[in-house]
């Protein structure tokens, strides 16, 4: 069984995001970068299968600048087997990123391709379904669990009120929303081993991909309006009075009740 997990390196989710000087991108000086959280869940989900069956191979790939190597190393340190970097400009249109990932998948022939359901920077969620489309494979979104059953896989898709369980014969693409367990931390031996691993590079031309898809361009960025200056009440044995005051304010002042 072979998994290919597609990763993206993004500003860490604890970063207080600020708009950069040009007003069209976030400021990146001095920030911490990490694997996008949904991709981390995807890695964890694949590694849990490897825990259950050690013959499972988990490969990871990213498309972008050399900075993405850190995310690949993180995945290797968590226990993935091999990593590939596809060199590409950071502003490569998402559909071309998906074409490059699909081309890598065609070479590696994994049984299951996993992507995070969206990257936590642009929050588009386009690449995963597009990889499936370019491969001509079925996909399951909002994936929270993958269980092998005979020659098929049970893929759990979170929906309102529960899960749809889909049965799929590989190859298939899964767009991961969550893993059963929290993503594991890299172990020290894992980190040492990951440091020694070579990360082969590919370029777009060798994958037969040119930047040709329509592009979405950020024209302006700003922060959501600052909130604050709210009314604060301290409870002091007068819960009923405060509760009535807040309920009345919701009715008369903010008119949401």
């Amino acid at each position, binding site marked *: 069984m072979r998994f290919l997990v597609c990763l993206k390196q993004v500003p860490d989710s604890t970063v207080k995001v600020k708009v950069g000087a040009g007003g069209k991108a976030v400021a990146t000086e001095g920030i911490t970068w990490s694997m996008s959280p949904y991709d981390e869940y995807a890695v964890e989900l694949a590694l849990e299968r490897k825990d259950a069956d050690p013959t499972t191979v988990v490969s990871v790939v990213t498309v972008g600048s050399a900075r993405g190597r850190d995310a690949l190393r993180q995945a290797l340190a968590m226990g993935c087997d091999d990593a590939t970097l596809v060199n590409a400009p950071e502003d490569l249109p998402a559909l071309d990123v998906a074409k490059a990932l699909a081309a890598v998948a065609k070479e590696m022939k994994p049984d299951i391709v996993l992507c995070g359901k969206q990257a936590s920077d642009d929050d588009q969620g386009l690449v995963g379904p597009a990889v499936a489309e370019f491969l001509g494979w079925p996909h399951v*979104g909002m994936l929270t669990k993958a269980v092998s059953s005979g020659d098929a896989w049970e893929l759990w898709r979170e929906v309102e009120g529960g899960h749809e369980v889909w049965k799929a014969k590989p190859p298939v693409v899964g767009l991961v929303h969550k893993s059963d367990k929290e993503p594991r931390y890299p172990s020290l031996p894992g980190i040492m081993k990951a440091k020694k691993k070579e990360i082969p590079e590919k370029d777009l031309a060798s994958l037969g991909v040119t930047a040709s898809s*329509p592009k979405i361009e950020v024209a302006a960025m700003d922060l959501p309006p600052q909130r604050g200056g709210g009314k604060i009440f301290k409870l002091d044995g007068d819960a009923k009075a405060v509760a009535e005051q807040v309920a*009345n304010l919701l009715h008369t002042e903010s008119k949401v009740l």
Partner: protein
Amino acid sequence: MKTVVVAERTRGALRRVSLEIAAKASSFGDTEVIAVKGDRYSPMAWSSAVAEKAKDADLILVGATPSGRDLGARVAAKLGRAYAADCTDLAAKDGALEAKRPMYAGKIRATVKLPSPAVISIRPGAWTLPAGTAAPQVIEIDPAADDPRITFDRFEATASGGKRVSLAEARAIVSGGRGLKGPENWKIVEELADALGAAIGASRAVTDAGWRPNEEQVGQTGKTVTPDLYVALGISGAIQHLAGMTSSKVIVAVNKDPDADIFKIADYGVVGDLFEFVPAFTEAVKKVKGTN
């Protein structure tokens, strides 16, 4: 601009977000509202059918629900279209499109430009539905043949069972955090939610601990929500949680810790014991609603 709205149904009825989009879409030009027959979304069968029907459209609009976003992305890939997800507004300018959308889990608001033809998903509640809007004429299309490699097997319901309004479309949400002290104490959250007609949310700490199902998680790696009223009970306000709910119209926070970050964004903050306050607040809400 020739526009196709792909409507979505839930339990047989058109979703509110589909009505919102259909009501607004005619301002972009000739509009057709289509819906795929059947009530179980299947990516390959539905995206093929929609792409075939809408291949000449300049603009394809879907609701930014989990299924709508999934469908929209695959249709965009199939047709090689520009795509923008979860938009809060959209305008057509000189044959191109300008959309507003959150990025970085809501920490950033962006204005993006994209060429037409395009596929756009619109966030529920972004376009208000004018009162008295007539239901749109819907053209039913058949899904394409399903891929034999994948079949729906069964539905596994979570304990809470989807009896309430969905988080994404709820106009009011009551969320609980660690301050509730344990899953056995959710009754007061439910009672307040019932009084408000609200959906129930949770902080990540609470879903990670298994107190509540994952689907209730609000924030980064959970759901981004924009209700009219968000009530945070016993939630301290980690940056990832705040990102997911800071665009709510009105925020009420109840927490023991006066320095909790949630108070920095709350319109009404109550510092104190939530077990004292919430039952009293539920009664007060019922009273106000009763006299409306």
